[in-house]
């Protein structure tokens, strides 16, 4: 992480093992680890700005801190964010791997020991064709070797439902709901839509909820 480039977001508490939020991410990690046959998880949200990338990084860092190798792959091809949060360029990433067919390890960087971060790479003119392709599933599944969890930092839930690869190609979906900003009716509608679409909705993460 290059601290000079991070200007609008403090990623420190998410990656720092001594952060006050770490234990909450560890509890989440333990619950995720307890789920059988769940390795690649699509992390989506009801709406933008509720903390998908934060949850992905915090959870992956907790997993890595617990000794489980993990990876975060930014699938937000319309609004790439992971590289910004990490203060890194976005010259190569997921789309590079999809185009060349090479393993995604080649296009990411270990930001912590055991934690690989793969940004989107150059944004394509037709993101839907990338997100709907079987190559996406194969490329991400390729990261599972030697890793306990792959977290896909994905678009909002309605786009996940629209993408067959994201909704059906992985082991489950984790829905991020903001504890203050997300309205209950919209959250309920989203969970209903995900379940009606036949996705394996593993559960919800209540992010940014009040302390205490």
């Amino acid at each position, binding site marked *: 992480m290059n601290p000079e480039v991070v*200007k*609008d*977001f*403090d990623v420190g*508490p998410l990656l720092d093992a001594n*952060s*006050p*939020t770490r234990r*909450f*991410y560890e*509890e*989440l990690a333990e*619950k*995720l680890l307890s789920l059988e046959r769940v390795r690649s998880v699509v992390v989506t949200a009801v709406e933008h*700005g*509720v*903390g*998908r*990338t*934060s*949850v992905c990084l*915090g*959870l992956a860092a907790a997993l890595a801190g617990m000794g489980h190798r993990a990876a975060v792959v930014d699938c937000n091809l319309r609004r790439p*964010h992971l590289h*910004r*949060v990490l203060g890194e360029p976005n010259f190569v990433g997921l789309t590079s791997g999809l185009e060349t067919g090479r393993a995604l390890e080649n296009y990411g960087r270990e930001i912590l020991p055991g934690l690989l971060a793969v940004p989107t790479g150059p944004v394509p003119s037709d993101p839907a064709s990338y997100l709907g392709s079987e190559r996406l599933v194969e490329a991400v599944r390729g990261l599972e070797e030697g890793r306990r969890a792959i977290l896909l930092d994905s678009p909002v839930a309605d786009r996940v439902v629209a993408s067959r690869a994201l909704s059906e190609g992985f082991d489950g979906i*984790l*829905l991020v*709901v*903001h*504890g*203050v*900003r*997300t*309205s*209950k*009716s919209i*959250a*309920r509608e989203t*969970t209903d839509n995900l*379940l009606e679409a036949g996705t394996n*909705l*593993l*559960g*919800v*993460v*209540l*992010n*940014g*909820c*009040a*302390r205490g």
Partner: protein
Amino acid sequence: MLVVGLTVALVLGVVAVSLFQEPVYTAEAVVYVSLQEDPGTTFDPQSFFSNVVGAVTGGGLMREVMKKAGWKAGVEGFRQRLDVKPVISQGGESSLEVRFSGSSAGQAARSANSYAYLFVERVGKLGQNRLAGGTLNADARVERRAVPPVRKSSPRILLRTAVALFSGLLLGMGGALFLESRARGWRGVRDAEMTLKVPVLGAIPEYDAAGEEV
């Protein structure tokens, strides 16, 4: 809280309005009207009864009734409180139900009886000249005098309170459900699980990030 608050407010409002409302007492008199026909003639009792009532109630009957009942507040107010209903039973018997709603029990009974007796008196005068060319005749008598009612007919505080209680509960619950569905902010994991019907795997508290959450 909302349910209780709304219910209490509605009940108190209704009770307050009812207490300040003028009490209303309703008294009823019944006049029996006998319609007679000469043998060999055919007539329609309903239209004949209507004709009798129409003939009797015109010609300043209302003013006479008001005078007899001691009413001084104007003819329009008297009309509004008077309810006269002609009734023809299935057996062909005709009667007139006279109801009056007054601010006192005595006034209500006095007014209803004044109307009933003046109606009978006028039918009697009408009967002296045989109707419809002499083939039809009508007679009337007060079958039941109005008596001063013991209870007021309005406002019915108990009934209104019950309705307000029920409405308050219904409105309160509806409002609470509506607000709950629009609410932002969750009371915790249990609240989220109850609302979303899916397990909550984690609850991450907000931290002092310098910028936006992504």
